[in-house]
């Protein structure tokens, strides 16, 4: 990837860089002072306590009638213990075990609270010149250490409940799968500060070793001393919920793309799933109108489930923001639970612009990416915030794609993307031959590839329009294949492998000889592009 925004590696190591970074960080008073620190005091409650409260809730719900009878006999109704089923409360009463049971409960409570307290006491972290370290566990101690020169990025997220307590989670991403160091939870302000400090220290270490610093977090002093004390907790919490997602000194204030709430809601509702839901609804109403009232018992839960799905999808994408910063592209999401990712340059392995059929009348598009460092489970579970733009105009999509590719020239790119999407014949694509219509009767006119100086672009789909943009320097392998039917028609199909993610780069039909050419060109171009790539420290050590 280009090094726009990434400082080039220095000519020689700068041994004093890590010292400078260190003193810069230390001067500002920070958690990153090399001492062991504990996490936010509410941590055990936020991590495990929720389950405990839930269990308590279930117990209470099950004993509801008994509790009502015990404490509010006037509301107890005509419920009476019928003696047939085993009832633990009656059993203890009738055998005189009340004292023992109370004692047991007390011991259990002490053990649980003590366990929570101990686990909090024993869970500590420190940030030294060389590494971020976390020690945890009561009986089985674990000690995880992430070397600073391997830090790929630092993420800050605030799930809803911790957010109420003013806590946030800090993820230090290290090269290698599931090797992240998690600091959950920290107070929000120190966490935001620690995030910058870790980036600054990591850059210092990199500079001292003669490598490129983590972009934008150089020792020149990103750390601003402007963070005030948390004096007015309530006001602070309110500000946290109301303030822009990106702390003002870490990102340009405005997002390059805004999603109007109306569009977000409409785009969530207008999709293929809704057609299905509407069909169910119509079917259900017809059934009820014909006297089959039992349908209501299956219909209502279904609708509730679907409604909550829509709700969670919408709230997740509300208050979306995306902006380029020196340390990478920052993407903020979420109304109640917020997440804030920074994608450093060189971690984007594939970008896809797509449009479902039902979005076409509105001119809406979606952008997804494949990024390095995403585990297979996260990719399968749809986690990892790979949908970079949930919905937007083609112009928004172009702007986001430009940002993903480290550029800023939206206008001329828009022309290219618009041509590729709307005028398939005149956009420099190598198209499928006419005989491909026997295999692919609709999409063959749009199916094609374009090899650009540093990019390979696949265009597919007529109902579900899709443009897949692959940085050549990130391609893992190129594959062409031919089955018996394709052989009869002198066709072939091609596919490019990237790291795992939601975007798959497949070209379903292409003329046989064009496929052979694509194979040669793309494999050669991939080798050349990666040999000229400057951000290899970011990319080659991802996994």
């Amino acid at each position: 990837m280009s090094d726009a925004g990434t400082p080039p590696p220095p000519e020689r190591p700068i041994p004093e860089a890590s010292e400078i970074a260190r003193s810069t960080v230390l001067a500002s008073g920070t958690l990153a002072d090399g001492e062991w620190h504990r996490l936010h005091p509410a941590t055990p409650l936020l991590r495990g306590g929720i389950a405990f409260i839930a269990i308590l809730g279930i117990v209470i719900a099950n004993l509801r009638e008994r509790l009502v009878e015990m404490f509010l006999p006037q509301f107890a109704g005509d419920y009476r213990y019928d003696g047939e089923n085993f009832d633990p409360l009656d059993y203890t009463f009738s055998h005189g075990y009340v004292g023992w049971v109370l004692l047991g409960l007390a011991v259990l409570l002490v053990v649980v609270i003590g366990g929570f307290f101990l686990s909090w006491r024993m869970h500590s972290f420190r940030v030294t010149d060389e590494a971020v370290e976390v020690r945890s566990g009561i009986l089985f101690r674990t000690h995880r250490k992430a070397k600073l020169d391997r830090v790929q990025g630092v993420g800050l997220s605030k799930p809803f409940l911790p957010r109420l307590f003013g806590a946030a989670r800090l993820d230090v991403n290290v090269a290698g799968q599931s090797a992240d160091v998690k600091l959950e939870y920290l107070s929000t302000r120190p966490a935001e500060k620690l995030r910058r400090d870790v980036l600054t220290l990591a850059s210092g270490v990199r500079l001292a070793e003669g490598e490129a610093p983590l972009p934008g977090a150089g020792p020149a002093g990103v750390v601003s001393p402007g963070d005030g004390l948390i004096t007015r907790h309530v006001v602070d919490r309110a500000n946290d919920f109301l303030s822009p997602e990106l702390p003002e000194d870490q990102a340009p204030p405005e997002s390059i793309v805004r999603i109007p709430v109306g569009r977000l809601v409409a785009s969530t509702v207008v999709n293929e799933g809704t057609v299905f839901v509407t069909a169910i609804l119509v079917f259900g109403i017809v059934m009820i109108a014909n006297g089959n009232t039992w349908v209501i018992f299956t219909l209502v839960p279904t609708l509730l489930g679907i409604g909550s799905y829509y709700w969670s999808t919408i709230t997740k994408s509300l208050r979306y923001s995306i902006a380029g910063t020196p340390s990478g592209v920052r993407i903020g999401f979420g109304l109640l639970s917020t997440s804030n990712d920074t994608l450093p340059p060189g971690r984007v392995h594939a970008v896809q612009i797509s449009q479902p059929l039902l979005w076409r009348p509105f001119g809406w598009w979606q952008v997804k990416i494949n990024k390095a460092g995403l585990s297979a489970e996260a990719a399968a579970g749809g986690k990892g915030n790979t949908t970079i733009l949930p919905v937007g105009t083609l112009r928004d999509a172009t702007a986001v794609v430009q940002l993903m590719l480290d550029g800023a020239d939206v206008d001329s790119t828009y022309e290219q993307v618009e041509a590729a999407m709307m005028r398939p014949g005149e956009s420099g694509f190598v198209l499928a031959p006419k005989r491909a219509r026997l295999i692919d009767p609709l999409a063959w006119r749009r199916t094609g590839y374009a090899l650009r100086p540093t990019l390979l672009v696949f265009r597919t789909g007529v109902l579900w329009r899709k443009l897949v943009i692959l940085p050549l320097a990130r391609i893992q392998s190129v594959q062409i294949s031919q089955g018996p039917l394709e052989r009869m028609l002198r066709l072939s199909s091609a596919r490019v492998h990237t790291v795992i993610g939601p975007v798959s780069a497949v070209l379903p039909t292409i003329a046989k000889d064009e496929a052979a050419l694509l194979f040669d060109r793309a494999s050669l171009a991939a080798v050349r592009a990666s040999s000229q790539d400057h951000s290899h420290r970011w990319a080659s050590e991802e996994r």
Partner: protein
Amino acid sequence: MESQVPAEPRAPAEPHSSVRSHDGATPVGPGTESAPAPVESGPGLPDTLAGSLATPIEAPEPAVETPGRLEIAGEWRRVSPRAITIELVGDAIGTVVVVAIAVVVWLLIDHPWPLIAGGAIVLATVITAAFVPRRIRSIGYLLREDDLLFRRGIMWQRFVAVPYGRMQLVDINRGPLARAFGLAELKFVTASPAAGITIPGLPLEEAEGLRDHLVSVAESRRTGL
């Protein structure tokens, strides 16, 4: 090596076609006359990704249509013919096990369906076994200047190119049968779970030599990344 290519008729026009002038050993751009190598960033062409997307491009000259199957020319190295024997012996052992189980179950329950099921499995194995020699002979690999090419399949053909610099690790696996025949399987793993290459049926020395070669070229390509 070329003599081991399956007996498919080669396209007669092939040596003359300019698009096929790409010989496997040198990374010369394909089709130097008919289609200039598009990656050379000539004057005015930007190297940045974003700039690359913003610049209008012309579609390249269409490829010359040739008859015949999909083919990538080059000195393909084939896997050892002993791999065929291994595969067949493995099938035979499997067949014996299936027959034994079927007979035992038949004796126990005195009903003909185990024999029918076992017979069906054996028949299917025999039919697939008939294609084993062709299938193994279709497997090949080619070491180019900067990438490893792999091919397999007759009915469903597949060609994969992986740049050496993409290598994450190389494995050599040997099952008991393969060990008895002095063969090994080489696995080339990249960051993409789908993009890996597995070359079965390599003589052990060749597999180890290939592994060492791949590791060393991957190392040199990586520094140049």
